[in-house]
């Protein structure tokens, strides 16, 4: 059982024109308790926040308070410790920062805090075997999040005045899976690989908007990574692959806002001489092997195929 309290005081001064000179007093209290049985662990906590805000000029952000509970459960259903079920529920509040609120010609003082409710269910499995792999571990989570008043920045009537906005309601459903395997081949070759896959449907649920029920900007529905490395004596080889599915640059899922999916393949070779002095290391990296055109941020092209040679000597 634990009880903790925090008090913090933030102030922001600037020699900017029309600056509000905000002060924020944050009072945070947290009560948490752990329950432990042989196969079951339960953690519960209750967080109380109170934000008291003052400004010298103009209107400040209203005072905010919230009580947010969290409960997390971890359960081992079988006698084997290799498999565990996990689940949590969490509520949280994110206050807009001073930057969000008070930078003149950028912020307005009317932002509301962002509230999030998270539901998560998942399992972990670790398994050692003698056949296909020496070791395999799998982690999978399914989650459902509800975000109210998500804070985003959008440009305003002219480009001197970006506005911070609350986006209304966003609903996120997702699955995340991670698999890791390791294997010793013969006596000298060590291999390990990892795969990650994420499915995330993040939908704008603000009624009355033209992007109602559309996937929110810059959030791919599918994304994943794969990596592998092989170690043989002083030589190692790395492979990494990243996939980001189709995305949209702006809230509406229309052709004009469409961003192509991209996948980059990177290779790396390292030769490391550890046995003789001086120790040295030589490496070759090839990034974006297939020289694919891609944008992470819409219309900001990323580099094509690139090479990097490295040589390190430890004296």
């Amino acid at each position: 059982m634990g009880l903790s309290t925090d008090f913090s005081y933030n102030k922001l001064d600037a020699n900017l024109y029309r600056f509000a000179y905000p002060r924020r007093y944050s009072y945070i209290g947290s009560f948490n308790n752990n329950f432990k049985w042989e196969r079951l662990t339960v953690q519960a906590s209750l967080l109380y926040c109170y934000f008291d805000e003052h400004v010298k000029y103009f209107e400040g952000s209203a005072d905010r308070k919230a009580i947010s509970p969290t409960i997390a459960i971890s359960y081992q259903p079988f006698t084997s410790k290799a498999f565990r079920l996990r689940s949590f529920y969490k509520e949280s509040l994110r206050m807009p920062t001073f930057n969000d609120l008070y930078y003149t010609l950028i912020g307005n003082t009317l932002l509301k805090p962002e509230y999030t409710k998270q539901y998560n269910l998942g399992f972990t499995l670790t398994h050692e075997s003698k056949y296909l792999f020496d070791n395999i571990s799998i982690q999978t989570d399914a989650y459902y999040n509800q975000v109210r008043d998500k804070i985003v920045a959008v440009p305003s009537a002219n480009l001197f005045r970006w506005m911070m906005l609350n986006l209304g309601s966003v609903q996120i459903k997702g699955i995340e899976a991670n698999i890791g395997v390791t294997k010793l081949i013969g006596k000298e070759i060590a291999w390990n690989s990892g795969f990650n896959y994420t499915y995330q449907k993040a939908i704008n649920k603000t009624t009355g908007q033209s992007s109602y029920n559309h996937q929110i900007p810059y959030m791919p529905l599918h994304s994943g990574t794969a990596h592998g490395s092989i170690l043989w004596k002083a030589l190692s080889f790395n492979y990494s692959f990243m996939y980001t599915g189709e995305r949209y640059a702006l809230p509406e899922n229309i052709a004009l806002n469409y961003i192509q999916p991209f996948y980059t393949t990177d290779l790396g070779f390292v030769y490391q001489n550890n046995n003789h002095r001086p120790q040295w290391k030589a490496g070759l990296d090839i990034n974006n092997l297939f020289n694919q055109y891609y944008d992470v941020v819409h219309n900001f092209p990323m580099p094509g195929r690139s090479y990097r040679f490295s040589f390190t000597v430890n004296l």
Partner: protein
Amino acid sequence: MNKTILLIAITCLLFSCRKERDLNGEESTPLPPQADTTIAGFYVLNEGNWNTNMASLDYYDYASGTYRKNIYTQANPDATLGLGDVGNDICAYGSKLYAVINASNKIEVMDVVTAKRIKTIALKNCRYITFANGKVYASAYNGEIALGPNAPNGIVVEIDTATLNIKRTAEVGRQPEEMAIVGNKLYIANSGGYSPPDYEKTVSVIDLSSFKNIKNIDVAINLHRLKADADGDLYVSSRGDYYETPSRLFVIDTKTDAVKKRFDIAAANLSLAGDSAYIIGSEFSYKTGNWENTYHVINTKTETLLNGSFIKDGSEAALDKPYGIIADPISRNIYITDAKDYVSSGVLHGYNKDGKKIFTVTSGNIPAHFAFVYKPITQ
């Protein structure tokens, strides 16, 4: 090894998931046709959110009533990444169409019929465009897009319409905006918007013979719009400072080059046709945090503010952020764009001369500027 085969398989699988971005995404929407006059239709320049490189061009054809969206990318498949970043103004003059692309620091010159690129003219932080006597004039901040007191003075340039080269340059105030030409003088509104509270307060006057700044007329802070009426009066808007000083509209008499009248109305944008000035006020107040939209008419002959909104059927409630406006000088139809939340697709609304809505069509991102195309097109 198995793993290699697996990885190749995954790569091939994902490779097939990638479809080409549909850059030729021209869409047509049927709208009511308009009376066949000397105006063939108009272009709409969608600004596109700053830093998104999403400026786009639409065209409304009067005779067929067809509204064509995103025509630039189809007309110019070789133009890398489209029209550019922030389309700030457009005009059609002679056989050419000039689009000022602010954050791409260029003026895109196109064929007025096909919208095919003829040339691009580099001009740093260019803002607005106008024309007279076979020349095109463009205003430019002539510095980086950045707030601060160190921004240089702005300029106005004269472009030869045959060679499409900048012939002459004159220095004006900081961050100059709209221009109008009356007689042999060019009037340009200085804003000083990069360095609040030290705004500019003047309209600069350029003598077109010498192309020199011959005087500055004191008006108000943060000037923006500037239009000339049939009698040689200028309607100049002040943005105010978004706090204590609200947006206002001033009238300058070009015979005396002095302010002769002030209208205490917000003027975000306006269009003059015949003896009427149609003014939209879309004003944001940091004090209340609200937007207030107004739709005023001024009789420019008598210089009086008429009662009531120029939208008569109550349909203005559908407008979120009225942004661009143009009145057809012949039919007196009024066209208003709605920028919405600046990240969604905007909307173009058409109203007839009685202030009744006749159509609504979805446009590109932040529809803002208009250029009428007159027929027959004369060189």
